[in-house]
């Protein structure tokens, strides 16, 4: 009775860990029809990835185990299918694109080869496969596809890599495409491009799309129906409009309510003595100018958001301010002293005041340290902050502050989901009681409800403790809610700098306007014509990312 293309019934997945069995997915059921797009929405760690990995047969067993359920594709259970037949399904009938295209592309083979392989694996002749790969690359909008065929993944920008992944997934025109957070790593303009492409392709081939995300904007942009997951279980299902307009489950309600970009904008007060005064900072890598003279002021307790496309120099600026990279020229006066001229000993003292939360929480936490060790390391390095006897207590406090619990202390980073890890990283930054925290895409990996709470946490810290923030982000609604000032960067230059209201309400530059237009609204009613209005020049800016 193959009435649905895909039907998941009572699927349960568990993992065996030190602390016992983790029930990652608890008896979930949903279905998906031809040509339909289903979004699985849910906060970080709710089991979205695990459930879709089960469909692709990608769960590592052990430690994982599918403890119950069936996954029917056209009525046939994928879980009980013979191995050879099962393998034939992957790629041909069901294909997948992953969140992080760099690590999911094989670094040592050309992309042309990798796309062709999807076809040759399923019996296509080599030369035909290459022709087809070329066509696909052209189709997904990779410039100079002939040359691109011979290039390697590290030679592409993030957006381009994601397009390569998509081309690869679409190679055999699958009936079902699973996209696991396909745009989380991308900046808004590229995200808009990728989603647009997905929709077009879906229209062309009539495939069903299962998209996993925690971004309400993405959901409203692309999905027909939504499944909401929480703690491994499905708590609500329905059409996008139903869910958005009339959420039933308290969790869904909270999620919708947490969608950013709705609150009042900050109105910064009068500016007095700046905490940090940056003038004409320049940085070049070889002949490439990453920063072309950046200047701005930051007052205590103020938030400066830095937005701009990928590769525009945002992270480079952050690294220079923290002296992780030495800038070529310019000054950065911190309470009147030039950061770039400090000796190592002076810098050490200053480290307490100037902290950073990194873009990628997985990479920024030492995998061999427990949460307790990670957070308390701050006090090992700066022993005068807190006597050792109080560490445990304070770590617990910090964990609660960032929305984790004290028992998490003895766990290791890999035992947390991405969002949880970022909260640990924030707790670690807070441990030093700094005056300025630079957040480099610190909330991009978080789902909306957590994101809202983290933002609120940061906001509270700013109000209560007077911490200033440099807030690098590509999610404009978040910036709108949190920032006092917004700095828009493009190709190493500041193209626009002003208060939130100025930048959001009366953008002066075309580039800023393009950015704002590409930003997705969670409201399904607001989406009409959205993507169509993205200016062509903004969508096509695809600057190659730094190689590995």
């Amino acid at each position: 009775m193959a009435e649905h293309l895909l039907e998941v019934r009572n699927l349960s997945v568990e993992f065996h860990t030190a602390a016992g069995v983790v029930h990652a997915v608890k008896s979930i059921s949903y279905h998906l029809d031809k040509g339909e797009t289903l979004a699985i929405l849910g906060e970080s760690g709710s089991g979205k990835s695990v459930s879709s990995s089960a469909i692709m047969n990608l769960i590592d067993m052990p430690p994982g185990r599918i403890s119950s359920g069936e996954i029917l594709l056209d009525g046939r259970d994928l879980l009980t299918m013979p191995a050879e037949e099962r393998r034939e399904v992957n790629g041909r009938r069901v294909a997948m694109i992953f969140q992080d295209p760099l690590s999911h592309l094989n670094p040592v083979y050309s992309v042309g080869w990798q796309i062709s392989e999807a076809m040759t694996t399923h019996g296509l002749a080599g030369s035909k496969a290459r022709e087809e790969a070329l066509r696909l690359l052209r189709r997904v909008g990779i410039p100079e596809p002939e040359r691109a065929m011979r290039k390697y993944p590290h030679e592409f920008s993030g957006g381009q890599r994601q397009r390569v992944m998509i081309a690869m997934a679409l190679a055999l025109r699958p009936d079902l495409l699973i996209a696991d957070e396909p745009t989380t790593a991308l900046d808004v303009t590229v995200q808009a491009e990728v989603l647009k492409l997905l929709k077009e392709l879906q229209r062309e081939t009539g495939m069903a799309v299962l998209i996993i995300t925690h971004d309400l904007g993405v959901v409203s942009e692309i999905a027909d129906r939504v499944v909401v997951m929480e703690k491994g279980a499905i708590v609500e299902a329905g059409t996008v409009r139903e869910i958005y307009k009339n959420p039933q489950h308290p969790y869904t309600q909270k999620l919708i309510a947490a969608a950013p970009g709705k609150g009042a904008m900050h109105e910064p007060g009068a500016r007095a003595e700046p905490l940090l005064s940056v003038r004409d900072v320049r940085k070049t890598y070889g002949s490439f100018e990453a920063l072309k003279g950046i200047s701005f002021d930051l007052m205590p307790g103020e938030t400066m958001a830095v937005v701009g496309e990928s590769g525009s120099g945002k992270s480079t600026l952050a690294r220079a301010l923290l002296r992780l990279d030495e800038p070529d020229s310019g000054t950065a006066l911190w309470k009147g002293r030039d950061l770039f001229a400090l000796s190592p000993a002076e810098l050490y003292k200053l480290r307490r005041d100037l902290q950073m939360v990194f873009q990628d929480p997985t990479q920024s936490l030492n995998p061999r340290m427990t949460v307790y060790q990670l957070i308390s390391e701050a006090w090992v390095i700066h022993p005068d902050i807190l006597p050792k006897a109080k560490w445990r207590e304070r770590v617990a406090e910090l964990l609660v502050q960032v929305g984790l619990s004290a028992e998490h202390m003895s766990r290791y980073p890999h035992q947390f989901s991405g969002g949880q890890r970022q909260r640990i990283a924030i707790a670690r930054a807070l441990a030093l009681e700094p005056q300025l925290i630079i957040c480099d895409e610190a909330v991009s990996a978080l789902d909306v409800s957590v994101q809202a709470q983290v933002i609120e946490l940061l906001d509270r810290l700013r109000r209560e403790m007077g911490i200033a923030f440099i807030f690098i982000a590509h999610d404009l609604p978040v910036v709108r809610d949190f920032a006092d000032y917004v700095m828009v960067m493009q190709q190493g230059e500041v193209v626009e700098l002003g208060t939130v209201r100025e930048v959001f309400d009366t953008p002066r530059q075309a580039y800023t306007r393009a950015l704002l237009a590409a930003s997705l609204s969670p409201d399904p009613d607001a989406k009409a014509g959205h993507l169509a209005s993205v200016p062509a020049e903004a969508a096509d800016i695809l600057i190659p990312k730094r190689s590995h």
Partner: protein
Amino acid sequence: MLRFIRQRALASLISLIGLIVMVFFLSRMTGDPAALFLPVEASAEMKEQFRELHGLNDPILVQFARYVGDVVTGDLGESLRKARPALDVVLEAFTWTLWLAVITMTLVTGAAIVVGSLGAFRSGGFFDRLSSMVSLIGASVPDFWLAIVAIVIFSINFAILPTSGTGSVVHWILPIAVLFVRPFGIIVQVVRGSMVSALSSAYVKTARAKGVKSGPIIFIHALRNAMLPVITVVGDQAASLLNGAVVVETIFGFPGVGKLMIDSILQRDFNVVLAAILVTAIAIFLMNVLIDLAYALLDPRIRH
């Protein structure tokens, strides 16, 4: 690329000079060749005259200056013992060693990759346990012991292989087999370890999602990524073979450079020792360049 090789060559030249200086002085601290060349009953005058004949009476720095002068003009001196140019002696022996090393390492690498990869694919399985057991034992067996046992079994008991020598292809079988064992044991372990992590990487997931079969996943997707550490170890093992498989050469009567080097230092035939070190060091340098090329060939990220 050329620039890179030139840089490497320069750096290696520095190492080489350091090596020569060190060996020159160290070896001369080990004793007087006259005492060894001449019988114990030889008179003091005879020894004196022998030293005079070979310039061993000059202050050591003078000897060194003369040596350096000769080396610069391409003359590595005469063998004290053999009355022929040291370089000829060494090159003759080195050719044998080179062949032995190349053939052995080719076989070892091929076999170790297959065994290690299969072990990694079903890590913890029966084949994995068996192969790591065998390779571990292989890595812990003394080679001279193995060599003699092999001769007893294959040459004496079964009489299917010659005991020793270099006459024909069959003569190479036992030495290669004995030399094979230890590097194989080590490289299998490295391949396995490297493959285990490569197989758990994200791009392997992608390949599985594409429906790629196990064979290509192991040998096409994971292996090439896992090869970098393997190549390093292969290089190390090859270097130690190029430096001479002394024990195996001794037992099988293989006229290689390892035995030559040890014999020469035992006889204080300094020129031969120095020439041998020079030749093997250059060979190892060239091999390292090859290894770097292999890196670049395998991993496009290194090419830039």
